[in-house]
């Protein structure tokens, strides 16, 4: 996992053109090595907890270092396959949710940024305002709505709700990027006779790739780590995403922290993978509005 993402990619070569800057000072590493260690310490900590036994945690407290290795936590976490199912649910909802929300907000942002739609600023801000609502208070009405639509307790409902609560913000971000796309590109395409749909598909989407990738990574972490909506529209354990399943493991009077830690480690893998894939995308991706 040597994520030296950028330097080795040939695609970047033209951008890094011209003379190289003088070598970096070693101070960057002096500062960043301890900082990075500090930042990853929780993962290490969770790893430590996951390989301790319950009795060890009960006797010596959760903060103690492991003295022996036990896979009790992992074994219990995966017992009965509940965790795998939950992981599958999470991935399904996240994939559907991210795709749908990016698709819907991309078309909305395109419409708002490149066409003279009356009151477009107002529409944009209103959409953004929708994202400012505190979700806790919408729990009751949202679950009532899904119930009356007959989609309560389905993964479909969870995906839809996630999308509804994401598009305002995504549209707002994409609007900013798309508005700054150089006009000349559009003029040229229009002169070539491309319609609004074709321009969107052939020009706007490819140019927005970096911002879409960044948003994709953000929304993946948001949707994947969401708990509150899962708690709102689902009630059957088989349909729970991983977050609700983890919460399920830890509530109550007694918590088996080693099991939770093991589950949490497994739960972190998909988001981590997606992030590293997308990171390549937007770090090495196309530049927006550079040629202005």
């Amino acid at each position: 996992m040597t994520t030296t993402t950028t330097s080795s990619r040939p695609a970047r070569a033209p951008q890094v053109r011209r003379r190289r800057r003088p070598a970096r000072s070693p101070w960057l590493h002096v500062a960043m090595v301890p900082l990075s260690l500090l930042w990853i310490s929780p993962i290490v900590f969770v790893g430590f907890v996951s390989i301790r036994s319950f009795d060890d945690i009960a006797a010596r407290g959760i903060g103690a270092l492991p003295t022996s290795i036990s896979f009790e936590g992992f074994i219990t976490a995966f017992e009965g396959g509940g965790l795998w199912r939950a992981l599958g649910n999470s991935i399904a909802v996240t994939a559907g949710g991210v795709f749908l929300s990016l698709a819907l907000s991309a078309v909305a942002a395109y419409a708002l940024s490149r066409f003279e739609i009356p009151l477009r600023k107002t529409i944009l801000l209103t959409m953004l305002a929708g994202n400012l609502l505190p979700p806790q208070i919408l729990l009751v009405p949202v679950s009532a709505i899904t119930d009356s639509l007959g989609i309560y307790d389905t993964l479909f409902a969870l995906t839809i709700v996630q999308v509804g609560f994401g598009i305002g913000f995504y549209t707002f971000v994409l609007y900013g990027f798309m508005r700054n796309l150089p006009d000349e590109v559009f003029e040229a395409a229009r002169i070539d006779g491309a319609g609004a749909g074709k321009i969107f598909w052939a020009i706007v989407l490819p140019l927005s790739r970096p911002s879409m990738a960044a948003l994709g990574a953000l929304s993946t972490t948001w949707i994947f780590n969401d708990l509150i909506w899962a708690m709102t529209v689902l009630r059957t354990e088989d349909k729970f995403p991983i977050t609700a399943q983890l919460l399920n493991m830890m509530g109550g009077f007694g918590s088996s922290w080693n099991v939770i830690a093991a589950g949490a480690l497994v739960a972190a893998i998909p988001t981590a993978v997606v992030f590293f894939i997308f990171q390549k995308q937007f770090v090495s991706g196309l530049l927006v509005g550079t040629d202005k």
Partner: protein
Amino acid sequence: MNHSQTTVSRRNLLLGTGALGLSGILAGCVGGGSGGGSQNGGGGGGITFQNSIQDTSPRAALEHLVSEYDDGDVTMNSVATEQFRAQLTNYLRSNNPPDVLTWYAGSVARNYAREGLLLDVSSLWEGDGACANFSDALRSLSSDDDGNQIFVPTQYYWWSVFYKKSAFEEWGVEPPSTWDEFHALCEDLSGQGVIPLANGIGPTPWMASGWFDYLNLRINGPEYHRELLAGEHSFTDQEVVDVMEEYGRLIPYFDPNMTSYDNQEAVTPMANNEAAMYLVGAFVTEYFPEDQRDDLDFFSVPVINDSVPTAEEAPTDGYFAAARGNNHEETLAFLDYMASAESQETFIEMSDSGYLPTSPDVDTSDFSPLVQKGIQLLEETEEITQFFNRDGSDALQATADDALTRFLAEPESLTQILEDWQRAAEGTFD
């Protein structure tokens, strides 16, 4: 001219396709939803059992009971307590509610019953129903305003001061039998460098109510306690001041770290023989490492004022059923199974925790000595209360958390704290 017409027609077409696509999606989702719904709901296809039991062993015990049930199809969903609480009203109001739900006896169940959301389970309480010979106290606890039963209690547990026998031996001390002895014991332990009282009131501030309840029961008696929690007395009364002053005398004995711990973390110092005693529910046994659980024993908080009846706290858990469920017969049959003496016995044996049966027919001779002692404690006491939030309300509990944790941090501002408490409590009674 010609030109623009084609444009228009194309637009119409597009709009049409769009609308069609949308309605297709909607139709798809509604169809999919109702399909999913009927699967876990009614229509003779079994029942749903929604529970908020999360401790590992009790949950495994429940799963075992459900899997052993042959007379119908039961889908069991375990849900985090907070989610369960937040969604409970939605569950009950839903068009397709879970049929059986875990809850505790008391005011909340009655409120739901008033709205007609709970299934009348009186049939289980008569004839050869599973609850027919439960105690009168349990019967009244499970009844709504009209005297119909809407709740099926299946187990309860007790609160007491838990300690480790081996540790007491090591320190050369004995469980106290009077309040003065208790104080002397705390002094003695302090002198030996041991923390006399463990507690965890950080993320679980309601643990501070344990001592409040018991001191109030011991000083002012159960009747006053119930009335206070029902809003019939003021928290600024001299009676409450007395309780708080007694509580204040215990402050030096508490673990100074209790404000950082939750009720589970509070056990670690005890497991390591750094702390001695813990006033807590019998669920605490599960927090100890397995090899220490048999070492646990308990004693009741000693009498302080012998002119009031003895009382113990014993929160009662059980089930109620949704009135809107569409499978009442199967629901009642399942509840009858869960409340039966055999099921209770299995549950208690498998749950590893200090639960007591509500059914008098359970053969308790095989239970652990600790549980036997718990049964005896509750048999001998004159009155039984539940816990602050169950005798009062969850709203009142929030005011107690605020007042008591603040008091433990700054006991000198008692007057102000009690005034604030009373003001906050008044807001919850209307």
